């Protein structure tokens, strides 16, 4: 499956070959059961258009003047005001600090989540210990608790520690994620054979060596996907950073909420869109470069439940 995913453009031929092998029934026309018809192309094109249009329009608005954006009909094509708008957005909110902060926060959170989730996922998938099933049920149950429930006491803890407006206030509560543990357990249950662990034990490897030399290499694709998902989620997190950080030391989302405004007519809408563009562009670039691998990682079964 992974092979066909990594070369999706040639999937038509690859798919035919893969399907031709098991039986000759295809010759009678049954083989076309999974080939897309024109309706599928039209519907998917509409979906892709709807998905991409707001992103395109963000760029259009960010490169036009505020007056032009506030006219009807709205502009449909990019113009030359992008750099002016970017410098205005930089003046209104500290986008440089914000971008750096978001990178630090999302980087730390995804590294630690991937590391701890892999360790716990490995233990739940392949090791035997007392209370394993009960503890795993507990992990899944914690996914249902809304983060808002912990916000008020967490806020107290953070202010008591005098961490208000410091990045560790955002990083520490997100060091682990139940979703990640569940995700890695699902992946390692299938991808890691018991025999490999046994062989390593017979060779005298202790658990740490097994983690380093057996688990990590096998888990790498799932770790990459999980890291991406957590990075995106952490980069886009709004509620908690909004509560503990201020405009002096914001993440991108907190900074955006400062330039952002709703229906007011005195606000330069083009500058707001520029802020949105600056906050989204790093992730979109990552997606443009790694998109196929991310999608391939997700669809190759790492999140099957």
């Amino acid at each position: 499956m992974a092979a066909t995913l990594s070369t999706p453009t040639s999937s038509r031929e690859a798919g035919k070959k893969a399907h031709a092998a098991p039986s000759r029934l295809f010759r009678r026309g049954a083989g076309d059961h999974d080939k897309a018809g024109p309706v599928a192309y039209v519907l998917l094109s509409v979906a892709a258009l709807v998905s991409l249009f707001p992103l395109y329009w963000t760029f259009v608005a960010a490169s036009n003047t505020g007056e032009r954006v506030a006219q009807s009909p709205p502009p449909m094509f990019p113009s030359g005001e992008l750099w002016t708008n970017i410098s205005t957005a930089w003046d209104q909110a500290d986008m440089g600090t914000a971008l750096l902060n978001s990178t630090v926060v999302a980087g730390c959170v995804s590294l630690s989540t991937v590391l701890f989730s892999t360790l716990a996922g490995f233990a739940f998938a392949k090791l035997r210990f007392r209370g394993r099933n009960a503890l795993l049920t507990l992990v899944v149950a914690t996914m249902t608790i809304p983060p808002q429930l912990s916000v008020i006491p967490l806020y107290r803890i953070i202010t008591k520690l005098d961490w208000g407006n410091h990045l560790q206030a955002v990083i520490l509560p997100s060091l682990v994620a139940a979703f990640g543990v569940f995700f890695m357990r699902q992946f390692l249950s299938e991808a890691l054979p018991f025999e490999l662990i046994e062989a390593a034990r017979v060779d005298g490897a202790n658990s740490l060596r097994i983690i380093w030399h057996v688990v990590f290499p096998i888990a790498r694709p799932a770790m990459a996907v999980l890291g991406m998902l957590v990075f995106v989620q952490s980069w886009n997190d709004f509620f908690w950073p909004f509560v503990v950080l201020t405009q002096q030391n914001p993440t991108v989302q907190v900074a955006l909420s400062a330039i952002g405004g709703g229906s007011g007519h005195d606000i330069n809408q083009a500058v707001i869109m520029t802020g949105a563009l600056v906050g989204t562009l790093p992730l979109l670039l990552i997606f443009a470069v790694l998109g196929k691998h991310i999608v391939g990682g997700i669809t190759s079964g790492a999140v099957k439940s």
Partner: protein
Amino acid sequence: MATHVRAEAPPARPSWRSRLYRFDLKASPYAFIAPFFLCFAAFGLFPLIWTGWLSLHYVDLLTPDVMEWKGFGNYTRLWSNDQFWTALRNTFTIGVISTVPQLLMALGLAHLLNYRMRGRGFFRVAILAPYATSIAAATLVFVQLFNPDYGFINWALGAIGIDHTQWYADTWPSQIAISTIVTWRWTGYNALIYLAAMQAVPKDLYEAASLDGANRWQQFTRITIPSIRPTIMFTIIVSTIGATQLFGEPMLFGGGVGVSGGSAHQFQTLSLYMYELGWPSRQLGRASAVAWTMLLILLLIGLVQFLITRYRKRHELGG
């Protein structure tokens, strides 16, 4: 596996090495799961219980150490307050009109993406792209697109003869607009999760069905849907949790910090109401009561989902 390993260790007079080995076998699983549970205890469970304790008191945000015992006063006050019921109803309606179309469209898209076609990689990445957009950026863009005076959506609707719509001020239009943002961001992500599940469905099932003369729609409803039912349940649960916690979209759609969920609270959600009570109004006790009410509602929904699943299983096994 364990017995196999134990047989190799000498039973009598355990050496230092084999004792170390046994300790490693016994202790390392707990060491591996410890970081998760320690962090959860510190930043999840402990605050959760503390919130419950706070909800029984009067507490001011500025003097959080002064707590005045209220018993269930915060809860009874909450439940006799119209704004709470409005927020609860809004959370429900916005949740339904965002989750239901979102998951249905995701199912359809996953089915289409599962076909052999040209440009499949492009379509998959394009449909996932909104997921990379933050709540703040997406909401700001849609605030522009939904602007009643010069926004793209009213302009496009006007072109096909639909009247000027007040997307900010009226209840249903504003809730539809917010649901649109949620749906836009999450449909592609759910579609890929469904696609992952669909790819695990054995191909011979479809081959057999198409030989039996089943058309694509019948294959979709009779093979695909039943095969991925656990994944569908998973996404329903996750989306329900997400809908209950909806905060950023209505917050930013209202135009920043001052206005909370619209001039008449027409799109104020429970999370937003909690924030309004706890921060701008400084009443942490009442905000905690909202938070615990949210947890109780989620537990209730979870219980109902569990009972439905159990009932369906029995029903299907019986009939």
